C-alpha cells in the first residue's frame, strides 16, 4: 500500500485547529503553538524529499513505495562495495533505521545515509505533536466519579509512532537475526523465562508460529503470541521503544486544547461514533486478524492505522495506573497496559481510545501485538543534517 505523508505543517495545524490559533495570536495558544510550530518545522525538515540529494529526487509516483519492500528499495540506492553503505543497507533492510539516527552513530554517517533513514522514518512513522492528553479512570463515566479524582492530564513531548502494528514479516527479521539469543536486548529478570518463548515446534519465536516462522499468507498480519518482554526486546533491537500509555492515547484521541484547560479528545481515532467499516473488531469480518495496513480510512488524524481493532497493543505502562487509589483493581501479577481492542473485542466501548485493558507481561495471547515509538530527540541528527545542507 502507499502511505500518505501527514507530517506537513498545514496538515497538523488544520487537523488540530491550531492554524486559527496562530493567526489569532492569543497568548494562551501562542505558547502551545510555539512548541507545535517547532515540531511542525522539525517535521518538515524530516521530510525525505527535502533532505534527499537533488540528483536522486524521484517523482511523487516513485515515492509511493510498498511498505513491505521499503527497506530493500532504499538500500538499493546505496553502493554495494562500500563497507559503511553495506552496513546502512543492512540496517535499512531490517527496518532498523532508528539506530542510524542515534547521535553516536549518526555523526559517523554521510548525509546520504541520514536522508535514507529520514525517508524511512517519514514513510513508516507518524509524528505525534506535543501537548496535553486527558487520561480517564475506568470509573469516570460509569460511576460519575468526579473529574478531580478520575482524570489526569498528562503533558506529552513530541514523539513518533509506527503507522502500523509490527507485522509477522517484520518480527521475523528479529527472529532471523537471533534476537531471542541476544541477552543484552532482554531485561536480566526475564532471562530464565527466555526458554519458554518458543513457537509450536519449540523454536524461539512467537507462540503461534511453527518452525521459527509464521504461517503462509500471514506476512502482513500483525505479530501475535508475543509477551510484553518479547515486544520490548524487539523494540530495543530495532532502535525504538514501546509507547507509554498516555502517548498511545495522545496518538489516537488526538486532543485539542480548549479554553477550560481540559483537552477535547476523540472517542475513536476517526471521531465520536463507532463505525464497523473502519476497524476490525468482533462481528466485522471473519473473527481473525487482517493485514496491518487495512482499514486505512480508520486512521487517526496523524495517519496512524488500526489503533482501534485488529490486535490489542502492549504499552510500556502499568495497567490501572490511572485508577484512583481507593478503587484500584488487584491482579494476581502486576499487569502491563493494553490499548485499542482486537478483532474479537465484543463491545465498542472497550476499543475506544480511553479504554485500558491489561494482561500479564508474560502472556502470549492470540490477539495481542504491538507497535513501536521513537522519541523526538532521537531524530535531532536529521535536523542538524538539514541545517548543514
Amino acid at each position, binding site marked *: 500500500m502507499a502511505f500518505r505523508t501527514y507530517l506537513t505543517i498545514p496538515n497538523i495545524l488544520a487537523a488540530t485547529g491550531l492554524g486559527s490559533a496562530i493567526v489569532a495570536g492569543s497568548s494562551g495558544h501562542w505558547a502551545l503553538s510555539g512548541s507545535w510550530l517547532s515540531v511542525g518545522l522539525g517535521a518538515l525538515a524530516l521530510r525525505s524529499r527535502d533532505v534527499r540529494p537533488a540528483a536522486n529526487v524521484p517523482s511523487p509516483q516513485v515515492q509511493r513505495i510498498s511498505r513491505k519492500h521499503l527497506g530493500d528499495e532504499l538500500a538499493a540506492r546505496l553502493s554495494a562495495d562500500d563497507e559503511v553503505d553495506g552496513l546502512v543497507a543492512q540496517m535499512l533492510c531490517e527496518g532498523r533505521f532508528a539506530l542510524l539516527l542515534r547521535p553516536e552513530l549518526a555523526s559517523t554517517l554521510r548525509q546520504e545515509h541520514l536522508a535514507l533513514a529520514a525517508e524511512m522514518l517519514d514513510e513508516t512513522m507518524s509524528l505525534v505533536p506535543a501537548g496535553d492528553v486527558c487520561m480517564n479512570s*475506568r470509573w469516570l463515566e460509569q460511576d460519575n466519579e468526579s473529574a478531580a479524582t478520575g482524570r489526569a492530564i498528562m503533558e506529552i513531548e513530541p514523539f513518533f509512532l509506527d503507522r502500523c502494528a509490527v507485522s509477522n514479516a517484520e518480527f521475523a527479521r528479529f527472529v532471523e537475526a537471533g534476537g531471542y539469543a541476544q541477552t543484552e536486548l532482554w531485561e536480566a529478570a526475564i532471562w530464565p523465562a527466555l526458554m519458554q518463548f518458543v513457537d509450536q515446534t519449540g523454536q524461539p519465536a512467537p507462540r503461534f508460529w511453527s518452525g521459527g516462522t509464521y504461517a503462509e499468507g500471514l506476512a502482513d498480519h500483525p505479530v501475535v503470541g508475543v509477551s510484553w518482554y518479547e515486544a520490548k526486546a524487539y523494540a530495543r533491537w530495532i532502535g525504538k521503544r514501546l509507547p507509554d500509555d498516555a502517548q498511545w492515547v495522545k496518538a489516537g484521541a488526538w486532543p485539542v486544547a480548549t479554553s477550560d484547560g481540559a483537552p477535547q479528545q476523540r472517542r475513536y481515532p476517526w471521531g465520536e461514533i463507532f463505525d464497523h467499516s473502519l476497524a476490525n473488531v*468482533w462481528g466485522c469480518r471473519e473473527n481473525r486478524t487482517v493485514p496491518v495496513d487495512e482499514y486505512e480510512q480508520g486512521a487517526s488524524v496523524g495517519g496512524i492505522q488500526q489503533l482501534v481493532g485488529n490486535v*490489542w497493543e502492549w504499552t510500556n505502562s502499568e495497567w*490501572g495506573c490511572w485508577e484512583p487509589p481507593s478503587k484500584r483493581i*488487584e491482579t494476581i501479577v502486576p499487569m502491563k497496559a493494553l490499548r485499542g481492542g482486537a478483532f474479537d*473485542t*465484543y463491545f465498542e466501548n472497550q476499543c475506544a481510545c480511553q479504554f485500558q*485493558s491489561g*494482561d500479564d507481561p508474560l502472556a502470549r*495471547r492470540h490477539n495481542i501485538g504491538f507497535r513501536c515509538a521513537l522519541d523526538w530527540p532521537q531524530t535531532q541528527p536529521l535536523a542538524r543534517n538539514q541545517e548543514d545542507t
Partner: protein
Amino acid sequence: MSTGTYQELTSLRIAEYAVGMPCFICAGGNSSDAELCRHCHAPIAIAHQANVQKLRPQMIAVIGPAASGKTVFLGMLLDLLSRQLGDLQLLARGAFSISLQQSVMASLARCEFPTKTPNEPDRWNWVHAQVSWQLRKRLELIVPDMSGEALLQEINHPNSCPVVRSYLKKCAGAIVLVDAARLDCGDKEPDFFAMKLLSFFCELHAKKGTDRIRPPLSLVFTKADQCELAFTNPREFAAKQSPGLWQTCQQRLSKFEFFASGVAGACGYSFSRSGKQVLPLRVEPRGVVEPFDWLVKQLK
C-alpha cells in the same frame, strides 16, 4: 350497566379458573392467570405460548456449580446467536426471554460480571427461543438460568428444590460447565461437582438394560482464557485435570463432547464491603457457540 359487566367478568374468570393451566415443566395445575407455577415456580407464560402456538419446546439445561459461569455463558450465547453471524440463529419468544441477555450484556459492557443468580426459582430468568439452522431446521428451546447452589441443594437434599428435578428430568440434552481456571490451579472441587451433577443427571435419565443415558451432553471448560491448554485440546485437558469427570463420561454417556470457552480476556479483583469481586478486564468471547451448536444438532 356496570353491574352487568361485573357479573360477566366474574363468570368468565370462574370459567377460566375451572380450566387449569398445567405447568410446562412440572405439569402441576395452576390457574390460567398465574404468573409462576405454584409448584415449581417456572413461568406459566411458557405453557401459554406452547398452547397458543401449538409448540412442544425441548429443554436444554445449562448446569454447573456456583460461580462456574452459567449466567455469563447463557447470556453471551443468547447475544451471539441473536446476531445470526454463523449457521445458527436464535429468536426469543416472549419478552421475558430477553431479560437475561439484557442484564448480562449490560454488566459485561461495564466490565463487571452479572450478580449471582438467586437461589429462589421464582427469581430465575427463563429463556424460550426458536433456534434455526441450515434454513429449514428449527427447534423450540426452553433454557432457565438455574442457580448452582439450588442445583447442589436438590442433589444433596432431594425435593428441596423440585423445579430442578422436574426440569432436568425433561431435558433433551445438557451443557455442563466446569471451571477450568480452578482445575488448572489443582483444585479438585469442580471435578467432584461435575461428577455429582452427571450422576444426578444419569439417575434421572436411566433406562433399564443400559448403563449409558441417551441425552447428549456438552462438557464445557469455562474461564479457559486463563488456561490455554483447555482451548488447545479440551479432551486432553479433561483427561489430565478432571479424571473423575472423564471416566464418568466414558462409562455413563452415549453422546458427549468436550469444549472450552472464555468470555473475559483477563480478570482483576476488587475488594468491597460485599467481599472479593472478580472483574473482567475486557470481553472477547471464545468457544461459546460451539458447545450449543454441537448439542442442538444432536437433538432429534
